[in-house]
């Protein structure tokens, strides 16, 4: 059968189960009821603090085949997944299913745990680094499940992804299991992606290197869901967590594109009092936000909220009054962490509040515009941020599909040529985000508007922006770089790309096999 973006998806995928094909961004109905998590009990005098992770494994007990979940707020500074899997391996656990909101190069030891049979299932929203390559080359027998940030929260709330044990990397924790991300040597700010896990997992273990007196405040993850607290020497490397180096790009082409994106927003009719905005923490996104801030200041506009990967730049915009609130599911630098800790207008929210399509209203629905990137985009405006042109997994939706679906205007910023390759194609290799949720492509060689949004194209043209037909832009790219040969991958399915509503939009097949 085919998903609504024309991709062949099987009726059943071995290691995943029966498939519902993607039918359109808002075409699949929600399940009737949420999954009911465990009732729990703690008696007066119970001590939640355990001496080691191994003790937690024994007390729970962690058995073969269980699903263990993790959050990715430490990004490439995370130490907890590796610690927990080392314990699992030493205790001889097998066939664990690892559900982690994102995977980074620091998680490379995962590959050996897969090879040795400790890990046999993987469920994530984004992968960068060697794990993606290994998966693409077929190291894991079962396909990796690639979700969106909102889709992961949905899957947990719906009980489609059941977590046996959530290991929550806790930058600061008290003895009774209250957790915050705003303090401690591994402070990371918001813990939004860990919240569904804490709420729904059968067992919750807070892993910390900063145990403080009860009661900790403010609480991000409450004692009412946390069963055990384990203190370890170090849960993460601050250099990989909040690198402090998220800065505006200096690449002149990137700056040009960012400025065009800001001009698109300015001309769209959306940039008025109460404007809301999401962008990533990459250098080009920050540049676009900076150009946009200048326009807002010139026009005397203040926005309602900004969200996304929060950096000092967005905090600065909040402090200057350009936005009334920051809604925060993830932070990227120490200024953002400090702001979350001190500014009451800086709100910490869960992944579900941010982007779950099956609740009574997630934040992305309130976005006027979002600026997103693309590894590839096609003339139907479908976007691939999952695989490279070589078929290797090197990303994933994260919040990409969620924000695109919610925002009134979704802008994709990308260099028309990356290296020697055009990024604008007839068909992207893997569809991550469907074209029906994408409105504008901004490149250094001009702007293309989704034909579904003719009124927007008209507005941009009237403002003098270089609007070109998407086919014309593609022809231009091919004139410069030639027509790229379309790679064909027909090996077994090594990954399934789940849309935020739980349907399958595409699959990833083995590369280089």
């Amino acid at each position, binding site marked *: 059968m085919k998903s609504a973006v024309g991709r062949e998806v099987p009726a059943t995928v071995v290691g995943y189960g029966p498939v519902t094909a993607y039918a359109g961004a808002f075409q699949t109905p929600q399940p009737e009821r949420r999954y009911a998590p465990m009732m729990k009990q703690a008696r007066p005098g119970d001590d939640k603090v355990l001496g080691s992770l191994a003790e937690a494994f024994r007390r729970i007990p962690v058995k073969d085949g269980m699903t263990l979940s993790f959050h990715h707020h430490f990004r490439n500074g995370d130490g907890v997944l590796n610690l927990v899997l080392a314990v699992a391996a030493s205790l001889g656990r097998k066939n664990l299913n690892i559900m982690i909101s994102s995977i980074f190069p620091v998680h490379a030891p995962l590959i050996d745990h897969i090879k040795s049979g400790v890990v046999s299932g993987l469920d994530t929203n984004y992968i960068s680094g060697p794990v993606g390559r290994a998966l693409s080359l077929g190291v894991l027998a079962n396909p990796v499940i690639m979700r969106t940030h909102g889709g992961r929260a949905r899957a947990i709330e719906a009980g489609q992804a059941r977590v046996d044990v959530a290991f929550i990397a806790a930058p600061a924790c008290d003895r009774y299991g209250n957790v915050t991300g705003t303090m401690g040597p591994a402070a990371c700010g918001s813990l939004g992606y860990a919240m569904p896990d804490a709420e729904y997992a059968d067992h919750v273990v807070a892993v910390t290197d900063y145990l403080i007196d009860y009661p900790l405040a403010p609480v991000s993850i409450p004692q009412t869901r946390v069963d055990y607290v384990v203190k370890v020497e170090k849960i993460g490397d601050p250099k990989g967590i909040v690198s402090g180096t998220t800065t505006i790009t200096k690449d*002149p*082409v990137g700056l*040009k594109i960012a400025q065009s994106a800001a*001009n698109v927003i300015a001309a769209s009719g959306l940039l008025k009092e109460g404007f809301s905005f999401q962008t990533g923490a990459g250098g080009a996104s920050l540049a676009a936000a900076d150009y946009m801030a200048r326009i807002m200041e*010139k026009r005397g506009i203040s926005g309602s909220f900004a969200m996304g990967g929060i950096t000092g730049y967005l905090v600065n915009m909040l402090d200057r009054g350009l936005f009334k609130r920051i809604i925060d599911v993830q932070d990227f630098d120490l200024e953002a962490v400090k702001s979350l800790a001190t500014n009451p207008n800086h709100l910490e929210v869960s992944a579900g509040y941010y982007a779950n399509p099956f609740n009574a209203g997630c934040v992305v629905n309130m976005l006027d515009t979002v600026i997103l990137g693309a590894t590839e985009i096609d003339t139907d405006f479908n976007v691939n941020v999952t695989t490279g042109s070589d078929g290797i997994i090197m990303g994933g939706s994260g919040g990409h599909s969620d924000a695109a679906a919610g925002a009134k205007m979704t802008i994709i910023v990308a260099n028309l*040529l990356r290296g020697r390759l055009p990024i604008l194609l007839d068909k992207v290799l893997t569809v991550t985000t469907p074209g029906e949720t994408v409105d504008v492509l901004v490149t250094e060689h001009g702007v293309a508007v989704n034909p579904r949004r003719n009124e927007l194209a008209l507005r941009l043209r009237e*403002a*003098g922006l270089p609007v070109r037909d998407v086919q014309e832009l593609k022809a231009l790219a091919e004139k*410069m770089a030639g027509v790229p040969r379309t790679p064909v991958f027909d090996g077994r399915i090594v990954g399934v790309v789940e849309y935020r509503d739980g349907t399958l939009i595409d699959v990833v097949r083995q590369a280089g096999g």
Partner: protein
Amino acid sequence: MLEVLRSMLFVPGNNPAMLQNAGVFGADAVILDLEDAVAPREKDAARFLVAEALRQVDFKTSARVVRINTLDTGGAEDLRRVVSCAPAAVLVPKVQSASDILAVAGLLETLEQPGQAPVQIIALIETPRGLAEAYSIATVHPRVIALAFGAEDYTAAIGAKRTKEGLEIISARGVLINSAAAAGVAAIDTPFTDINDEAGLRADVALARQLGYKGKLAIHPRQVDLIHEVMNPSVEEIRWAQRVLAVLRQAEQEGAGAVSLDGKMIDAPIELRARHVLKLAENIPAGGAEQ
């Protein structure tokens, strides 16, 4: 193509990625550089790249200019390789005298293909001798359409320290603009070299504009928009220029002689300035006011 030269952006002639993207920044001209940006051992590769770029790359609205080396350091070979690719102009470095221009013009004449539009010359004045000869350099050959000022070498030669404020080059800037104006060619100001100092660039372009310069060399794409912003006429100036020309048209229709606007005589220099303002205004994109 070379009528409006608010910004002329240097692009290293040995960097394929930058050559490919040179046209996306909206500079009035790009200068594909075979001289200072390219190490001696890479000159030949750069000639090949620049020639290919002139043939293949779409530079959009930017005029195509090539900075050659001086004739005694490979400039003749530069010309042999690029002239047939039809650049709009060559930027000739370290011009010392009118004879330097005549030598380049002579080579251009022999190298141009039949039917090819004449390649123009922009003379880069960057020595005290060149500055002293600026007027004769600008008038020696009809191909010379502009004088450009290179202050880094110049200040070194006069033994002054180069500063951001530029007091040390104030007289040189004055001599150059006067020579260009007397010769009826354009004057292009020296680049501002601190690419991270936006406020400094703004002040430097404003000063150049106040001195009479209509254009500036740019060493980084980020400088282009700001140069345009400062060099562009303001809304008030555009309105003034439109009124000047309207009054002139009316006077012409009525056969009147001397005319005035707001109590001031409109003479030839005022008409010229008004026409230039409107020429510049044509180049301001609709979205430009917010850039």
